[in-house]
C-alpha cells in the first residue's frame, strides 16, 4: 500500500448512500447478476472521489456481495480506474502510432511543460493536473486527441495546449 493510500485509511465516508445508492440500485434490473453492476459502481466511486481507494473497494464489495479481492482484481485490470489520488484535472493524451505519426510526442512535451507536471504520471506541484499517456483513443484521424476529465478534445497541437488548459482551474 502506498503512502497516499495509507493517509486515507479510516477516513472513508461511504459513497453508496442517498442518491448514489439509489442510482446504483436503479441498475439492478438491467443485469441478471449484482456482479455485473461492478463497473458502473466503480465509475460512481471515481466520479465522487476522483480515485478508487482500498476502503472504497471494501465498500463496493459489501454493497454488491462480492469479495474485495475480486473487486481489486477488476480495478487493477482497467486503466481508467485510478488507484491513487490524482490532480484536480486528469489529462489523458494519446501517443499510439497514428498519433505519433502526426506529432503526439510534441503535444506531450507541451503538456508536461505547461502543466508543470514534468513527467508522465506525475501530478503538478499545485495539484491542478496529472498528465498520463494512454493507448489509442479511437480518434486517429483527429490527431492528437486527449481527454481532460470527461472533455474529449481533438486535433491538439503544441500551440493549442496553453489555451486549452486555461479552462481548468
Amino acid at each position: 500500500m502506498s503512502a497516499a493510500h495509507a493517509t486515507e485509511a479510516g477516513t472513508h465516508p461511504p459513497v453508496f448512500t442517498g442518491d448514489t445508492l439509489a442510482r446504483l440500485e436503479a441498475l439492478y434490473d438491467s443485469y441478471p447478476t449484482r456482479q455485473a453492476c461492478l463497473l458502473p459502481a466503480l465509475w460512481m466511486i471515481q466520479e465522487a472521489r476522483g480515485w478508487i481507494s482500498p476502503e472504497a473497494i471494501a465498500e463496493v464489495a459489501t454493497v454488491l456481495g462480492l469479495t474485495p479481492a475480486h473487486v481489486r482484481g477488476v480495478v487493477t485490470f482497467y486503466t481508467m480506474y485510478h488507484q491513487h489520488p490524482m490532480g484536480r484535472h486528469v489529462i489523458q493524451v494519446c501517443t499510439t502510432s497514428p498519433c505519433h505519426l502526426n506529432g503526439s510526442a510534441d503535444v506531450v512535451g507541451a503538456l508536461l511543460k505547461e502543466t508543470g507536471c514534468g513527467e508522465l504520471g506525475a501530478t503538478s506541484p499545485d495539484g491542478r493536473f496529472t498528465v498520463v499517456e494512454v493507448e489509442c483513443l479511437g480518434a486517429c484521424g483527429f490527431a492528437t486527441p486527449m481527454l481532460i476529465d470527461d472533455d474529449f478534445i481533438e486535433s491538439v497541437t503544441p500551440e493549442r495546449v496553453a489555451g486549452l488548459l486555461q479552462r481548468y482551474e
Partner: protein
Amino acid sequence: MGFPHPIHPGENPVLSTHFGDPGAHSHAGWVERGGYTALRQALAMAPSEVVEVVKASGLRGRGGAGFPTGLKWSFMPKEDGRPHFLVCNADESEPGTFKDREIMRWTPHALIEGCAIASHAIGAERCYIYIRGEFTEPWRIMTEAVEEAYAAGVLGASALGSGRRIDIVLHRGAGAYICGEETALMNSIEGKRGNPRIKPPFPAQAGLFGLPTTINNVETLAAVPHILTRGADWYRGLSLGNSKSTGTKLISVCGHVMRQGNYEITLGTPMRDLIFDMCGGMRPGRTLKAVIPGGSSVPILNATEVEGCVTDYEGVVAAGSMLGSGGMIVMDDSTDIVYEIYRLTRFYAHESCAQCTQCREGTGWTVRILERILRGEGKASDLDLLLDLAENMTGKTICVLSDSCAAPVVSGIQKFRADFEAYLTAGRPHALAGV
C-alpha cells in the same frame, strides 16, 4: 459524407449520409430522415425472415473478422425457452480505427434501430451496447438517444406497439483494448476482468451470463436498417467485382495523407484511389512508404502492394494483409518504420491481459528487443530472434492479441529489412528520448 471533409465523388454514402448533420441526432430528426421504418417493417416479419434478408444481402461483420452476419444470427438456438442477448461492440480501440465513434456521434438512432432489428431477429429481449470508457461524447449522445427511444415507444415493453419487448442497456468500459475481443467484452459486462474465454463454447451457445448471445460491431448493426428498407438485392449489388464482399464500408484513414477522415466506399474500390484521390495523397514532396490497412493488428503493406490492392475482404488478403476493421494507417517516406513498429508492439504489451504465457512474455520480449535495436545496441541475430518469437506468438493463445503483435513485426522485417539493418550495422540510435 466522410466527416469532416466534404463528400468525395468516389464515396458511396449510406451509413455516413448524415455525418455532420446535427438534425439527425434526435428521434424526431431521425424519423424525418426515414428512420424507424425499417424497424417497423422488421417487427411485422418473422425473426427467421429477417435473418434470411440479412443473409441474402451478403453483409459481413465490420469489426474485423468479416464473418457473415446473417449466418452468425442463424446460429442462435430457436425457441429454447432461455433468455437471449444481443451485444453491440462499441469498444472501438483498434489503432487506426475511428468509424464507430462517428456513427454514434452523428446517427445514434441508426445504431438503436439496428440493435432493435437484430434483437428481434435473434429472439433477444435485451441488448447491451458496450461503449469504451474514453468515448465520453458518444456515451452522452447515446444515453440521450436511448432515453428518447424509450419515451417515443421505440424501445420498452412493446417496441413500436408490436407487443414485442426490446430493451437497450448502455454499458461503459473502463480502458482495456482487449475488451473489444468478444468474449473479453462479455466478461467485462459481467463485472469481471476482461480476459478472453476459450472457444468453444461459442457465444451463440454460451455467451453473456452463460446464455445464447450474438455480438455484432456498431457499423454492422447500423447497416441493417438500410438492408431492410432497400432490400437485400440492392445491398448485394453494392460491390465492385467480388460477390463475397458486398455493401459499403467505412474506411478510417489516418497518418500521412492530406485529408484524414472516414471515407465510405463501395467494397472493391482500389486502395490507390482511396489514398491518392479521395484522401488527397501524400504531403507535398513525399512518397508512400507503407500502409497498415485494417487496424494495427494486420500485416503491413508496402507501396507496391498498395498499388494493385482492391479494398475488400478478399482483395486485401490477396495483397498480403487483411481488411480488418478498415482502419488505414498511412506512412510516407519520412517514417521511421522501425520506431512505429516498436510503438505498436508497446501497445500490445500494454494491452495484453496476461493470461497466456506466449502473449504476456512474448509481447514484452518483443518490445525489449526492439528497444535495444532502436538504441543502436541490437545484435545481428536480433531479427531472427524476433521472427522466432513471433512464430511462437502466432496461433497459440486464447485470443489473437499475441498474433496481432507479431503481424507488424514479421511483415515489417520481411518488407523493410533494410530499415532494421540500418540500426544494426550503423549503430544509429533513435533520436527520440525515452527509448
